[in-house]
């Protein structure tokens, strides 16, 4: 399991091996939603806010 830094609080976030660019993960420390921007090396950014037309 690798780690990356949370851009919101700076804590280390545990990352699974099958991480995908575009996936959203939660920071276990501050609860921020983070988007995976890159996987090698892993880079996280704040996830976009929910939009009205999201869904299925």
């Amino acid at each position: 399991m690798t780690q990356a830094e949370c851009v919101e609080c700076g804590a280390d976030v545990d990352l699974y091996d099958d991480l995908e660019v575009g996936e959203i993960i939660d920071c276990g420390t501050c609860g921020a939603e983070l988007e995976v921007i890159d996987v090698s090396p892993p880079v996280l950014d704040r996830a976009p806010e929910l939009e009205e037309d999201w869904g299925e």
Partner: protein
Amino acid sequence: MQVGILYSRIRKDEKLLLSELRDRDHEVTKIDVRKERFGLDSTTADIENLDIVVDRCLATSRSLYATQFFASYGVPVINAPETADVCADKAKNSLALADADIPTPETEVAFTTDAALESIEEFGYPCVLKPVVGSWGRLMAKIDSRNAAEAILEHKATLGHYEHKVFYVQEFVDKPGRDIRVVAVDGEPIAAMTRTSDHWLTNAAKGGHAESFDIDDTALDLVERASEAVGGGLLGIDLMEVGGADSGEYTVHEVNHTVEFKALNDAVDVDVPAAVVDWLETRVANAEADEGNEQRTGVTATV
């Protein structure tokens, strides 16, 4: 096969799909639609050699336009832009179902708060007010009184976006605490589940409890016809039981074109992503066979 996945967010559904495709050694091109540009003749996205593109856009607006562009470039898209257009809009969805004589909740659309209030009063209380574009049960209102109706209509009229001024009013269906979601490919069910909740909204996204559901012949027929009514493809067809649980009588309230299936996959024994990929493989194989026939006969092939 070479598969393009249109996305802006990778949910568990997309992870399941990607994993299944890669396990079968298919080549996958992830296309983040936020990063690409779409011209009239070409795109910055890498679409060369793609056999098929699967639209998994989270945002309906992006899904509607991206599928149009990809279809225009001659890349087969799941689902077709025509299907997306009908399914993305609840009014078009209701019309398509009604036109195909599929039982669907009574619905009216009004363009002013006064006309909408007339609709609501005519339906009686409770009735339901829904946004024409929306998902996951958001902004849905069960209206219990005239006071509530007036307040909600005023709020909607001032929300800003013009779509909120298209008032979609529907009868309240007294379902037995659950509705039914069927995921189907070209009308053939992969699996089905009930979504149960104490709340009037039973969507999985609202916390509805999912359980496997055995489809009877009536539901099977409705699923097939509802799929055909919106143009077919990979769809989530939502039904409600009329007259109590296991009554065998249904009304189809919605067909979804970028269907989420993670809750279904957890609730049933069927491997849903595997069934979806089976179907994609068949579509591509059939298209290749048609192409071969076309070369021999001069008839145009479609996926």
